[in-house]
């Protein structure tokens, strides 16, 4: 599924190296978590994989099912099955949530050579998915993320994920700004999407989310590198002892 080898990335504007050789291998059906202190490069990794401007790849590669991701436009990566749940979902005044979802779903279907969903089929699908995430009709009608609470924005991300049915889901601090109930709702949404053919990369600061979304592998990232990988117990260790021991161990 997602294969990253020796990925090195600089900030385009300033000559600052953020990722200094990241290796990662996420297989279909697996859930990987990345934890790490602030500024370790976790979010950068998610942006670079999804194709955001402002970063320069200076070495290494990233492939999704063998296809080079880094060469593609963001929309092509999405059509290839990559999805990023944003840490800060963007507000888009003037674009209805429903219009946004339908445009995205149909753009991806078109890119894959599939027929566009009819308005009726789309509506049926979106209503069922929204209900599971406790997203009401009003939220679907409102402009994308405008006036949404933090929890509503994150649930809206998961709704998009559910509608777009990506192969590889990257979640960038989806738990930030969520209360316990909202986190449970989001985690249930993600767990419902877990399947043999789909993989998740969950970026988080806290063990709490991983209580709900059980990872197969946990990676610790620091200063642009993965310094340690292990099972779920690694997350517990971070929760109890912080990063200091792990960082000392690595250096």
């Amino acid at each position, binding site marked *: 599924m997602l294969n990253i080898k020796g990925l090195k990335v600089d900030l385009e504007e300033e000559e600052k190296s953020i990722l200094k050789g990241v290796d990662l291998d996420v297989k279909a059906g697996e859930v990987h978590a990345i934890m790490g202190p602030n500024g370790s490069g976790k979010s950068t990794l998610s942006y670079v994989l999804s194709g*955001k*401007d402002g970063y320069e790849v200076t070495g290494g590669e990233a492939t999704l099912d063998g296809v080079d991701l880094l060469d593609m436009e*963001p929309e092509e990566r999405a059509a290839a099955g990559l999805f990023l749940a944003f840490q800060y979902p963007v507000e888009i005044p003037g674009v209805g949530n429903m219009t946004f979802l339908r445009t*995205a779903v149909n*753009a*991806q279907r078109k890119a894959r050579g599939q027929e566009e969903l009819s308005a009726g089929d789309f509506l049926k699908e979106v209503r069922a998915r929204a209900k599971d995430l406790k997203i009401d009709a009003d939220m679907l009608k409102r402009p994308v993320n405008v006036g949404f609470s933090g929890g509503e924005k994150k649930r809206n991300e998961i709704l998009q994920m559910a509608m777009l049915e990506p192969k590889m889901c990257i979640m960038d601090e989806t738990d930030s700004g969520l209360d316990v109930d909202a986190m449970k709702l989001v985690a249930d949404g993600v767990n419902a999407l877990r399947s043999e053919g789909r993989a998740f990369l969950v970026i988080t600061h806290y063990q709490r989310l991983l209580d709900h979304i059980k990872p197969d592998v946990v990676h610790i990232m620091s200063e642009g590198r993965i310094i340690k990988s292990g099972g779920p117990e690694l997350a517990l260790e971070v929760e109890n002892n912080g990063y200091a021991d792990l960082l000392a161990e690595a250096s």
Partner: protein
Amino acid sequence: MALPKLKQEATDARLAEAVLPDGPAWARAAREEALHRAARMGLPHRRDEYWKFTDPSALVAVDSAPAEVMDDDDALFEGAGALTLVFVDGVFDSDASDDLSGAGIEISRLAEAQDISWARDLYGSLELAGQTPVERPLAALNTATATDGVLIRATGKADRPVCLRYRRSAEDADAVLHHVIRVEEGASVTLLETGSAAARLSTVTEVSVADGAAFHHVRQQGRDHGRRMNTHTFARIGAESTFKSFTLSLNGVLTRNDCVIEMLGDDAVAHVAGACVGDGEKFHHDDTVFITHDALNGESRQVFKKVLRNGAVGVFQGKILVKEGAQKTDGYQISQSLLLDGDSQFLAKPELEIYADDVACSHGSTSGAISEEALFYLRSRGVPESQATNLLTLAFLAEALEEIDDDALADDLRERLAGWLDRHAG
């Protein structure tokens, strides 16, 4: 006072060619006065305060430049069930038009109209009133020389809109149309306009809205690339009346829309809005609005949005004048541009002039680019860049389109815009 030399020469040259049309005879006096008015004021020049951002020379010149005829005989507003009046190259086409009758409404063709007292009183009078404090000589020239147009009197709630459908057949048509509309007390009517009228078009629409009456106006200005036009709307509105006008402009070389509204009765509402998309360095679009509050508790809105790219130029000159005693006025004005590249320009001159001490007036003007954040968000969901840009462009214009009360008409224009953007992607 003598006019500046260049202005005098240009005015003399144009007025020497001006022909006062034969019909209707009752308008003769108003036309002659208007011609004198135009001669006295002189036709606009780039040095005039309200023409600093827009070069009027192509509108003033004796000859109009030909413009390629584009098949713009579209079906816009066809679902509105309107009473349709067709003009070809600025000439009324009775065969293509509906019968000039409808419930709650009286319509005549200007060129053939009998001496109707309300029209005689109105023809040229709102244009004359609108010359103060800012002179609008092209409107006076229009009053003098207009060859065709319609006179509409709404006596009740008109059961269908009136749609003026403009078509072109000649490359060099230079058309001058003058419409006069009177909405009687408690009556209401909707006027629609669409299509490409001529290579060069001048229109004046005088609208008198009586107490408790309502006038709605939705227009789409022709999509042909080469046309040049100037339009003037002069409105005088009474107590508890409503005046709402919306304009969508796509293409064209030069468009200047003047809208002058006088709010003379208490509790009146006047909204003027527009959306335009300009593509290319030849595109120049100017909205000039002047709203005068001269009564209590009036509410006015000016909402203008322009999307400009590839060197297009957009202009907004908007004024709210609140006269002494026009207390409790609520005036709002916003003009915004979305500049899709570094070559395009938006020039805005918002003005407030307030002589009453208990009013709420606000105005704003902004220029911005497409939000990179929003663009990436859309693309990360699989929406290709050009489609995402179009979606954000439509979203930007949505606020202006929301000014249209009738949802079906707004949807018609939204579709028109979306189609245009699809065809002109990138």
